[in-house]
């Protein structure tokens, strides 16, 4: 088990009701009504998911994954297999989904050209849109909307830049970012529908 913390992004019901915490479904037996035959087709239509269906489950991704070496539960091959089987709810609520470090070793080494890390990114986008977000991503996202970059740099540090002779940081155009946040649905995802 991982200790990934997740919180709900929207009012859409999670599989566990309104508790806000989810049981990790990954190790429980699969039920017949869990399969969604359209899921793999949906994922493979999105940028980065095109080669998904070429996966033949060789396991190169997992065996070369630096995270999998230190995690009892994170296995990229499992995630891909769940997508291919159509276990949509199971994969989107899996807390291991958030352990990919996006180092792209799996993507570079997949003999079937599956962009494994990109598939995981697609799954994360879908999970966040529908159900769950690790608080860190919410924080980084809100920082970007409020200040243009992912971290909030304290005033003192900005002053120190000038003291040590570094040029002031360029200003961000927050109006432009707000427009992008609205156009892409990013702001709605972070702030909720209301």
């Amino acid at each position, binding site marked *: 088990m991982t200790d990934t913390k997740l919180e709900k992004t929207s009012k859409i019901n999670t599989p566990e009701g309104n508790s806000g915490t989810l049981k990790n479904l990954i190790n429980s037996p699969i039920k017949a009504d869990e399969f969604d035959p359209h899921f793999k087709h949906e994922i493979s239509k999105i940028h980065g998911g095109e080669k998904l269906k070429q996966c033949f489950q060789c396991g190169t991704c997992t065996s070369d994954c630096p995270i999998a070496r230190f995690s009892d539960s994170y296995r990229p091959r499992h995630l891909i297999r769940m997508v291919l089987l159509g276990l949509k709810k199971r994969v989107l609520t899996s807390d291991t989904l958030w352990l990919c470090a996006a180092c792209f*070793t799996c993507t*570079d080494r997949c003999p079937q050209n599956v*962009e494994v890390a990109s598939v995981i990114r*697609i799954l994360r*986008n879908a999970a966040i849109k529908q159900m769950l977000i690790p608080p860190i991503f919410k924080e980084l996202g809100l920082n970007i909307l409020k200040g243009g*970059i992912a971290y909030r740099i304290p005033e003192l540090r900005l002053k120190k830049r000038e003291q040590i002779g570094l040029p002031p940081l*360029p*200003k961000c155009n927050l109006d*432009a970012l707000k427009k992008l946040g609205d156009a892409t649905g990013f702001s709605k995802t972070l702030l909720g529908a209301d």
Partner: protein
Amino acid sequence: MTAPKEESKSKFLLFLGCAIPYRVSSYEISTRKVLDKLGIELVEMPEYNCCGLPIDPVNHDMMISLAARNLCLAEQQGLDIIALCPGCAGTLRKVNRKLKEDKHLREKINSYLGLEFKGTIEAKHLLQLLAEDIGYQKIKDSIKKPLNALSASDHSGCHVTRPGKYIGFDNPENPEVLKHLIEATGANYVDYVDRLECCGAPIAGVNDNIPLELSREKLVHVKDAGADVLITVCPFCHMMFDTNQPRIERRFNENLKIPVLHYPQLLGLAMGFSSKELALEGLRVSPNHLISQMGAKTGVSEK
């Protein structure tokens, strides 16, 4: 509006990103010093925003839009972008390539931006600037105090080369640029086990343990290989190996004490800059013993 590109060959837009101004200013300070010495003029981005990478897990279109906006701003200046963070460099590079190739995506993103992406500039990481635009010979010629007494290992960082088919720089399975750049300073390059492994930083926000275990393992391997110092070119890798090193020592009961320098700090020492000019005091693991050791043999002094 757009300056002709040929006139500004050694002029680049500096993309600082988030992590460097937030807490890794030693990387910025030392980079500015050595690039100035190498005849590179850095122009500040007129306005910039996050490259997009941190929120790629939230919304891919937003990531592309944020990167595209930076690229459009650079196009207006007619200058290529240099990013010090491999995450920024990789993201800008990937999106630049995708937008050039995919008309449908380009039109969609242009409509979001209210700007027109033209595809007239390049985005690259510091390493690429050093290796390709400046070149190893010019770097070797700039060395005043070769670091012959020093043994150094490298951690190139995943996003400098991966995913290979989108980044198209160096060899992801055997990156050599940083190795050659280290050798250019006169230092002895030391290989080690699992050199290509990730530092784990990208998941530090969701998992407290795995990144520390990964970084610990790498630091142990570096030490076992006999290196005096580990060289990085990424603010996040640097935070894992340097800032977190005391934490790693406490948690795993290790005695590591391996100084981790940004490559421009290493190059700067060989160019003859002082510790202070290169912000070596900004490092968590002190390299002072190395400086005095080198000073005894090569005349590099700590002012």
